[in-house]
């Protein structure tokens, strides 16, 4: 397996740390005026989902994690597993709750998601950057308040709650950025 030197560290690089594949979220170089430099990294353990901070001596190497990303369409949830399918081979993969926990509220049937596999087991599911979901509940907008003072909360069909502008109403379909949870716009039907 390839190893990576600390000067190749960047967000998104996958490393084996404490026997578990991890994803670098942030990497910062810490350099004293003279002397040993360090890398301070924030990493997400891909199996447990835990986010921890680690330090490395700059110049050291760390084993890369043998993980693979594949694109699969979301099918359905059977109560225990979330099922995905390769649209070309029709091969199916089932992911457990630990793998989908951060993405459940963004899973839309037939949307193509990225599954991270480690030893052929899905350990993380990343939804598309943008999803379209129907609003199931939101307060009617207050008249006259068009200045957009932060909007109002709206519950979506998956249970996700996002802030939307006051003019957006129940029953409308909106586009949401799954990376930030921000409202992007209304979808014209």
């Amino acid at each position, binding site marked *: 397996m390839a190893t990576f030197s600390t*000067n190749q560290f960047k967000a998104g690089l996958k490393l084996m740390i404490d026997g578990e594949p991890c994803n670098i979220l942030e990497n*910062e*170089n*810490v*350099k*004293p*005026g*003279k*002397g*040993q*430099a*360090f890398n*301070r990294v924030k990493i997400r353990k891909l199996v447990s989902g835990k986010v921890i901070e*680690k*330090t*490395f*001596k700059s*110049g*050291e190497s760390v084993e890369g994690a043998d993980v693979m990303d594949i694109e699969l369409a979301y099918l359905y949830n059977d109560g225990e597993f979330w099922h995905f399918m390769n649209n070309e081979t029709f091969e199916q993969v089932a992911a457990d709750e630990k793998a989908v926990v951060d993405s459940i509220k963004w899973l839309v049937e037939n949307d193509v998601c990225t599954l991270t596999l480690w030893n052929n087991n899905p350990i993380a599911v990343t939804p598309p950057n943008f999803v379209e979901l129907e609003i199931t509940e939101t307060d009617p907008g207050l008249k006259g308040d068009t200045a957009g003072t932060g909007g109002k909360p709206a519950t979506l069909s998956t249970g996700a709650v996002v802030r939307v502008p006051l003019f957006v109403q129940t029953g409308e379909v909106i586009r949401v950025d799954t990376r930030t949870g921000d409202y992007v716009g209304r979808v014209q039907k």
Partner: protein
Amino acid sequence: MWQPSASISTLKARSHFLAAIRQFFASKDVWEVETPLLSNNTVTDLHLDAFDTQFNFDVTGKQKSLFLQTSPEFAMKRLLAADSGAIFQITKAFRHESAGRFHNPEFTMLEWYRPNFDDKKLMAELDELLQFTINAKPAAYLSYQQAFIDYLDFDPLTTELTELKAIVSQHSDDEWLQQETNPDTLLQWLFSMKIEPCLGSGTGENSSDDWTPCFVYDFPASQASLAKVCQSDSRVAHRFELYYQGVELANGFYELQDHQEQLRRFNADNELRVQAGLTKKPIDSNLLAALENGLPDCAGVAVGIDRLFMLKQNLTHINQAIAFDVSRA
């Protein structure tokens, strides 16, 4: 990407800032020098890497390496040994390492030397420069030993390796720290991670108007670099650093004059390089010859100008303080 990474108004402010520095030194009769960016030799420091360039037109007819300077220190000391008197320089310096919020591989350095000054006197002058150029409050002064006692409750000069590891383990369970055999690495880890971010802050709760520059002086002799070891306490050296808003801005020495001691330190550095699997660096014989001829009793300091300007302007990234960062260079 053709556009500058700093705004034009920021770059104009930078021009005024540099002019103020020159004015400061003119008023003190410290004259400005220029020394080569390309040098036949470089530093031996374990943790510094120079850019190595190829020169094809040497008089010997052979290809050879010329190094981009990591600081103008050696050349300026040769001027001092040739009786230059007090000198300063604003120049580019280069370090072969990754860019970051506070680092660009090519950066601007202010360096100056004062014959008949010791480290205390030079710290006072740098303090004055900060007040003049960035309107800083008068600096605080803290010994390296006291910094550890104040922030981490132990004495770095008397603590053994095993004790040090026990202290480190209270802050991190990273395995490599427990396997580390060099006590200085652990001290540098604690200093960088736990002390430095608090330095140069005021007495209040990180309120930004309350920042006070902070000098840390009397570094351990094992981290002396090019400083004289203290006569009254051989555990420490006359080396200081300046911190402001949690950022390291300057490093200074009451300069080592003994050429044999200097050669010994260069060789020791190279030994450490070999142990770490790095190549030895050629030792600067011109510097050693200059020291042998006689370097005046003097103190010198190098200040990171891009960082200082960044803090003066309340910028969040060093790219915003320089015209073109390395990715746009």
